[in-house]
């Protein structure tokens, strides 16, 4: 135990995200860290959750870490395998509790960009992946949790492209636009955990990771973070046992939790 490596930021993200998952919920899992967090939650505090994947798999028995949301681990001995419109349809119908998503840019109202970076759509600086299921999960699930690395380039005043609607311009804008569900309820980043202020729907600091001050979190954001009154709690960190599970059982190849170049 004494020899174990110190926790890296991606492992922290995976753990904190896993804590956002409530036992017995049906969860829509996006690619990357959400898959890691989902499997970790299932192996620890939330053994009764049901996974839904957009390619059609759902509720697989325990297996390896999927390469993607279409791999065999997403439907390993699933009771049934669906097709894409039915899978997203379940979220629209009210049968999925929480969706977990990544982002390339996120604004203060929880609107996300995974489409392109730049001023001009037809001549972007970078064309990113595009929506995939991101827009659908964000539009249709009852609650949304975002996860990603925090920096001023990622927490932006204005997304270069709104791939997925969060709370749009804040207040009741989401409801008025006709979207379903409550929208984003939390953001898990490398600096802390955020929720959304109930009236304005602006992103608000909920907890900060050990060693992160509100000033530091603000420096890593392109928009003003709402600071709650009173002292800000420190995010709970994983214990050795959970780190062991994460490293040896959830993602033993380190596909998602090893730091690039490390």
């Amino acid at each position, binding site marked *: 135990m004494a020899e174990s490596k110190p926790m890296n930021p991606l492992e922290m993200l995976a753990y904190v995200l896993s804590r956002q998952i409530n036992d017995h919920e049906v969860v829509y899992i996006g690619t990357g860290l959400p898959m890691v967090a989902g499997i970790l939650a299932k192996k620890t505090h939330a053994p009764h959750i049901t996974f839904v994947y957009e390619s059609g798999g759902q509720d697989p028995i325990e297996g*390896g870490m999927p390469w*993607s949301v279409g791999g*065999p681990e997403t439907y390993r001995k699933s009771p049934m395998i669906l097709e*894409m*419109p039915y899978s997203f349809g379940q979220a629209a119908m009210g049968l999925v509790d929480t969706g977990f998503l990544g982002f390339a840019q996120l604004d203060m109202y929880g609107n996300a960009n995974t489409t392109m970076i730049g001023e001009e759509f037809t001549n972007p600086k970078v064309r*990113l992946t595009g*929506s995939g299921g991101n827009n659908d999960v964000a539009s249709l699930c009852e609650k949304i949790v975002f996860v990603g690395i925090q920096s001023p380039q990622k927490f932006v005043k204005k997304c270069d492209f709104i791939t997925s609607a969060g709370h749009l311009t804040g207040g009741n804008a989401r409801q008025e636009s006709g979207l379903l569900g409550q929208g984003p309820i939390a953001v898990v980043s490398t600096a802390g955990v955020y929720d959304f202020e109930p009236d304005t729907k602006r992103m608000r600091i909920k907890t900060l990771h050990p060693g992160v001050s509100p000033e530091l979190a603000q420096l890593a954001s392109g928009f003003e973070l709402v600071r709650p009154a009173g002292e800000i709690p420190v995010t709970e960190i994983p214990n050795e046992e959970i780190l062991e599970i994460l490293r040896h059982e959830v993602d033993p190849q380190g596909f998602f939790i090893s730091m690039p170049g490390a």
Partner: protein
Amino acid sequence: MSSFQFEYNQEAVKNLKIEDTSILDRLVDYRHAREARHKKDHSQRDKRMSLSEAVAEYVQDGDILGYTGFGYVRTSLQSDWEVIRQGKKGLQSIGSPNTCQSYGVTFGNTPYTHASYAGAEMRGYDKYFSDNIKSGRVKILSDWSHGLMGLGFKAAQLGLPGVFAKSGLGSDLVNYNPYLKVMNNPMVKNGDPCVFVPALCPDITFIHVHAADMYGNARFFGPAVNDLALAGATRKLVITAEEIVSNTDIRWNNKGVQIPFQNVDAVVELPYGAAPGYMPGCYYWARRWWEKLFTMMSEGQEHMDKYVREWILDTKDTRDVLKKLGGVDFMINQKRLAKAAEADNEDSGVSFKYEPWTPNTPPDVFD
């Protein structure tokens, strides 16, 4: 040729800088697609032919090509490569995801895309796709979410002109997709904004399945993704199958039959038709082949030209590709991994550990 005059989302047409919108028409011309399906010989007859015959006969330059499977899972990669070998040109691609545009029927053959997702999930975005967008080698004709595109195929399969959806609202997708329109639910008095998604009808679609009979009745398992919908939505349909079974076999094992024969134009016996990708229950994907590919995709045009030459133009057919991937050893190993991954076989003792591809990996190691 169009039986309708279309009224596209003008904001999106402007934003995408599409000068002549007639290029958009065929995808949503469901009457034209109906006519094409209606004109087919609907008899139960032997439709077997070789892959090269099927591609030569059913893929025309300028066709809208539907992508099936899910990136590297049950995708008709070997058919896609044959389309490249035959030098088909001016194609439009549509699929959720459209990732295969970088390694299936790639940009030289496919200058237009209806985009939804191009990337390698954990490996990040597809730099090759991005470079090709920037250079103008491929043009986005419409930008989608998976769910909205899936509904367009589903509407076509169900014979509907379109559906009202709740995805896309408030997002920029509706500003960059000429086919999507925000409209009120006509049943609700005080306003219920929805996104109208028209039925989407590609020209030609290849679907790789586990088994089909000579008429084209086909069954597969694993994630259906949009393939049941596409089988009905497309104008022309080629089924490639791991094995051709008798019609009696289809009838006596009818729990998995998912694609009816009527819309099928050709049936191709094509073992390993999804290689180097994954075929549920049959063979695992060639992990290091994909990792090497992602690296080349990041390194740009020159490397990808080399890849297309090496794997597609310089191979004759799927058997050639299999030999290159490692032949018998490869086939036995990938079958073992797939069966263990799905818990069809005993999986204790089957290791999924491997050394990811690096430039130091021996040049003939792909599994």
